[in-house]
């Protein structure tokens, strides 16, 4: 630390007068000496304790009846926590993690130092294995269901029959590793055991599975949905195989497409055994749709997650300019040519009409709608 202090300070004094520089160096040296003296007789280490435990800290080699001062994260600890020179922490919580120092009473020599880390032993880890790049290999990933607040170490073993296999860890993230298949089409199961250890305990979990059972491709990519010109009820959807699937020729994928108008909750589904495109032919005219695609190997494994959703609206004709007075009085709800008012459309509700004058208005409106319909056939 001494050298580092001097080196870090050097750029600060490049142009100072030499007597001032000398004085500063002397002061710094004094500081370093005091610091070294204070820490020369210390014990320093990390101490792990469980949440809820009672912790007793001794002030190094000091006698029980010695006068000492304890600090935690730079703050003096009240004497009520002391039993003689021992520091007693009852039912420790996470907030009590930190640096603890014990100083001799009169000299303020540092006699003991510890980094207290309060945490928990690990619970059973959650382990998942999956092959998204069949037939190349598979990966396993894991995590703890609840944090321990202290460092954990994971060890994974993969056994196929009697053979140990190497699981190569990813550097980030550290909680994943990859295994290459040495054999394919094997009926012998794989057994993966993950052990997690920390200073307070240990736990493990085991997965046993068949080669085919964990095959799950990534979702299809580049999903695109487009309207089909002059077809108000069609949408053309296309996508690509997930780029992580290495050999779609030998291991073809099949697909599941789902779509619905935004205004409805119910999906419609189509399963496609080959090809990477599909034309929806029963879309509601003028309604915006949400569309997703999933993939699965044609024989083995499970369906992928759904792809990123895409939105599309079927083609609609541009509204034509209305020039006649009758057309100007038409309602906006019939402004798109994809809507054809059927002859039986009720414009007038007889129950709401009062008097013969209202009936005349009703007939006029009906004639106008009929004329409009004829114009747009």
């Amino acid at each position, binding site marked *: 630390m001494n050298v580092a202090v001097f080196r870090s300070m050097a750029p600060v004094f490049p142009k100072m007068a030499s007597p001032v520089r000398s004085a500063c160096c002397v002061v710094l040296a004094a500081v370093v000496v005091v610091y070294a003296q204070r820490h020369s007789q210390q014990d320093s280490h990390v101490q792990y304790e469980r949440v809820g435990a009672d912790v007793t800290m001794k002030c190094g080699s000091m006698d029980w009846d010695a006068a000492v001062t304890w600090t935690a994260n730079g703050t003096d600890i009240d004497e009520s926590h002391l039993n003689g020179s021992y520091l007693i922490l009852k039912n420790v919580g996470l907030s009590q993690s930190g640096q603890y120092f014990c100083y001799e009473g009169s000299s303020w020599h540092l006699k003991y130092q510890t980094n207290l880390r309060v945490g928990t032993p690990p619970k059973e880890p959650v382990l998942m294995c999956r092959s998204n790049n069949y037939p190349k290999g598979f990966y396993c990933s894991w995590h703890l269901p609840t944090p321990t607040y202290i460092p954990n170490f994971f060890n994974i073993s993969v056994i196929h029959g009697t053979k140990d296999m190497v699981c190569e860890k990813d550097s980030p993230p550290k909680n994943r590793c990859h295994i290459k298949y040495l*054999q*394919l089409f094997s009926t012998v199961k794989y057994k993966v055991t993950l052990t997690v250890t920390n200073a307070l305990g240990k736990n493990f979990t085991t997965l046993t599975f068949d080669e085919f059972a964990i095959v799950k491709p990534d979702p299809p990519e580049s999903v695109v949905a487009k309207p089909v010109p002059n077809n108000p009820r069609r949408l053309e959807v296309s996508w690509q195989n997930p780029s992580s699937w290495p050999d779609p020729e030998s291991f073809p994928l099949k697909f599941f497409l789902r779509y619905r108008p935004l205004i409805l909750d119910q999906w419609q589904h189509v399963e496609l055994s080959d090809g990477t495109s599909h034309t929806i032919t029963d879309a509601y005219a003028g309604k915006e749709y949400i569309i997703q695609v999933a993939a699965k190997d044609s024989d083995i494994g499970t369906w992928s997650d759904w792809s990123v959703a895409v939105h599309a609206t079927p083609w609609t004709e541009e509204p034509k300019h209305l020039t006649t007075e009758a057309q100007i009085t038409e309602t906006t709800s019939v402004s798109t040519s994809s809507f054809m008012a059927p002859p039986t459309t009720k414009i007038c509700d007889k129950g709401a009409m009062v008097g013969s004058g209202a009936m005349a208005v009703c007939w006029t409106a009906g004639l106008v709608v009929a004329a409009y319909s004829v114009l747009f056939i």
Partner: protein
Amino acid sequence: MAAADSPSAALRRRDLCSRGIRLAGKMRADVVDLLDAYVEQQGLDASASVAAVEGVPLAAVERWDEQTGTQRLLENLAAYRAFRALLAQMLEEQREQLGEADAGLGRALAAVLLQVSAFAYHLEELLRLESRGIPGEEEDGPPPPPRLSRFEQKLRGLGVLRELAHWAVRSERQLAKPSPASGAAPGLAESP
């Protein structure tokens, strides 16, 4: 017989491969259904591990895509001939033990046996197209099985059906995969 590399032979090969792929796919689906029924009716645990049984061809293969087309065909043919004999034996044991009590399982076994026989024939046709001699059946037949207890017979049956299900996937994929350029035989399922 047309030359192995003539256009008509290539077309015939392509046709046989395509049909073989479909046959293997259908066979696999039926074997999986049969496996489920077998496990249930024999009172077995579906997740039970079964040790490799002598005479049951293992589907597991290393460097599966590096075999030549002919090697694939020969291995597949040997396997399906073995399965044909094993399934026939299972059917016989089923009839002896359960009589008519389990006719459904018997019928399903018989149906799969038929598909296995058809697929073996299909493979022989492909080999003939390669102008390869068809190995005699006596070379490939399994050795006579030792006398097994009823429970051992059930476990062996489980092992047979599991391997057959995996073989069907392997066969389907190997028929679809072009063989390496260095292989002696032309690739399977190639465009003419």
